[in-house]
């Protein structure tokens, strides 16, 4: 019983870390520029597909994964320079609304294209083997996810606390006008963060595919999970989003094992609604 509980906690932690990565994809772009990026799920799926394709030419999953993330970053860069720039021209609530509709339209467009050209399901096999310790069996995929996501969080922490660009990004999130007065160009920071958020979501997608099959249809589901995690964590709080992802991942995994998957999903959305009702100002 205890062993099963620990197994669930570890699987939940792995799932939660992936949710945190998706949530960060939303938090960074919305917190910085007011655009609710509904393309996060598409970025995740594109990274998985790119990784699978590259895996045909290179033997290492790590290299293929990095290739997939790089492909998504390039894709996001092109989108940012073209369509997303038009959204950033708007101000205030107009930008928020236009951001929702344009990223919704783009997500439908790319989801459809993925269905047309890459309709099959994708699964990435990790070479990490399962470990048994004092009666607790930890799956290889969970270990791989916890290790890889741990490294990623370390890099993200370093970026936002110890690099000029990271600190500039946090400054723009807190006070755009003040940042301009300090000589920071918000649009440039917004572009970099858009690409960074896509790369983070892409990495989340690759880790997600170690434990679950990914299809083009997964993109919508992953986007909704990302929004909910981001909301529960507070859309302008990077730490809050990471914490919310981990907690919700554990809650969903445990609730799923105890009550079934649909009640676990209901729990996730209900938590998001409760947070929004209690503290709506954190997403205003």
């Amino acid at each position, binding site marked *: 019983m205890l062993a099963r509980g620990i197994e669930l906690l570890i699987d939940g932690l792995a799932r939660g870390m992936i949710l945190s990565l998706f949530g960060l994809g939303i938090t960074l772009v919305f917190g910085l520029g007011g655009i609710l990026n509904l393309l996060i799920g598409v970025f995740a799926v594109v990274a998985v597909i790119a990784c699978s394709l590259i895996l045909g030419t290179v033997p290492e999953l790590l290299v293929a994964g990095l290739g997939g993330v790089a492909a998504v970053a390039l894709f996001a860069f092109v989108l940012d320079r073209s369509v997303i720039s038009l959204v950033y021209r708007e101000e205030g*609530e107009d930008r928020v609304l236009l951001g929702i*509709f344009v990223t919704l339209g783009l997500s439908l467009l*790319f989801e459809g294209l993925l269905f047309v050209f890459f309709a099959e399901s994708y699964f990435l096999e990790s070479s990490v083997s399962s470990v048994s310790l004092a009666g607790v069996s930890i799956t290889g995929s969970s270990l791989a996810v916890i290790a890889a996501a741990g490294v990623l969080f370390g890099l993200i922490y370093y970026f936002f606390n110890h690099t000029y660009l990271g600190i500039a990004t946090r400054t723009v999130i807190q006070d755009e006008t003040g940042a301009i007065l300090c000589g920071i160009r918000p649009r440039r920071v917004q572009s970099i963060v858009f690409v960074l958020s896509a790369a983070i979501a892409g990495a989340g997608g690759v880790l997600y595919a170690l434990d679950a099959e990914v299809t083009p249809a997964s993109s919508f589901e992953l986007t909704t999970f990302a929004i909910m995690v981001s909301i529960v964590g507070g859309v302008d709080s990077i730490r809050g989003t990471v914490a919310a992802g981990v907690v919700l991942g554990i809650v969903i995994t445990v609730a799923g094992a105890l009550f079934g998957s649909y009640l676990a999903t209901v729990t996730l959305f209900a938590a998001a609604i409760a947070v929004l009702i209690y503290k709506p100002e954190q997403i205003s």
Partner: protein
Amino acid sequence: MNVNVTRDRLPTVIVFAVLLAIPLVFFDPSTTYISRRFIRVMIFAILAMALNIIFGETDQLILFMGGIAAVGAYTTALTADALGISPWLTLFLGALFAGVFGALVCYVAARRQFTVIVLAIVTFASQMIISELLVGLRDITRGSTGFPFSGLQLPAIEQATGLGSYAIQFYVLVAIFAGVLGLYTWLRRSKYGLAFAAIRQDEFAARATGVDVIKLKVFAGFIATFVIGLVGPFYGQTTGIIIPSLYSFNSIDVLVLIVLVLGGLRSRYGPLVGAAVIIYIDNILGNFGQWRTVAFGLLLTILFLYFRDGIVPSATELLAERTPLGSVLDRGKAE
């Protein structure tokens, strides 16, 4: 009768004359395909009209239209089934349930002063919960496989008039559309229209001038979700089955948004024109599988980036500039 009033009513007379003639000209009892397309146009026109009331007039963006339509459809069908009575008797119960649920959401949103995006996300999350519950509570809802539904027919009227069931269903929907259009026109011309405009321009200033913002937002929310809940069962009737996927975000909300923006936000006939164009495009794209999703995605993106005014407002503006008829249509738009 005043000449201006007659001119104002001219577009209404033309539109309804065309709508009433459609079954007589196009419906063929041997093939139901065309009939279903026209019925779909009316359903989406009514849904877009409901979104016009809540989003167009009071800036409350709701993304749970599919969920609300499902609440109306499931309540109507399951209650009728449980009580062993006709769904016609439970139709308003379903709509009322949907309306009360929608009003409650709008009340919480207005009291907590949700911004557009907060309400959008709350309603979107509610839609996900409704979808999950519809699939998960299989003992009540019969899960993802759904159940057959064709209870909203009027055999007595079919016999008396000699019209087919699809023609009767179309006329029922035209009647609902007329009712919602009449209500919307009245709302815009009455003191409510002024209050809605005040809320849209500056909510805090509206409060300061004595407008009861919470009451008005809840009122608009109730009307819109009541109408969506009323249409939900008819949507199920069109396909002959009530199933969760029929009422998903992608099946309803996305289409209704495109219909309203393409037709023209806050225009009286925009929803009808938008629905006709979109269902026609959908019909053509139906043979191209997933390219349909690609095309709708592209359309939504382009519409919002470059064409937010919509067909009806753009056309009336163009007509007003170039022809005397335009002045009649333009006045309708200005109202």
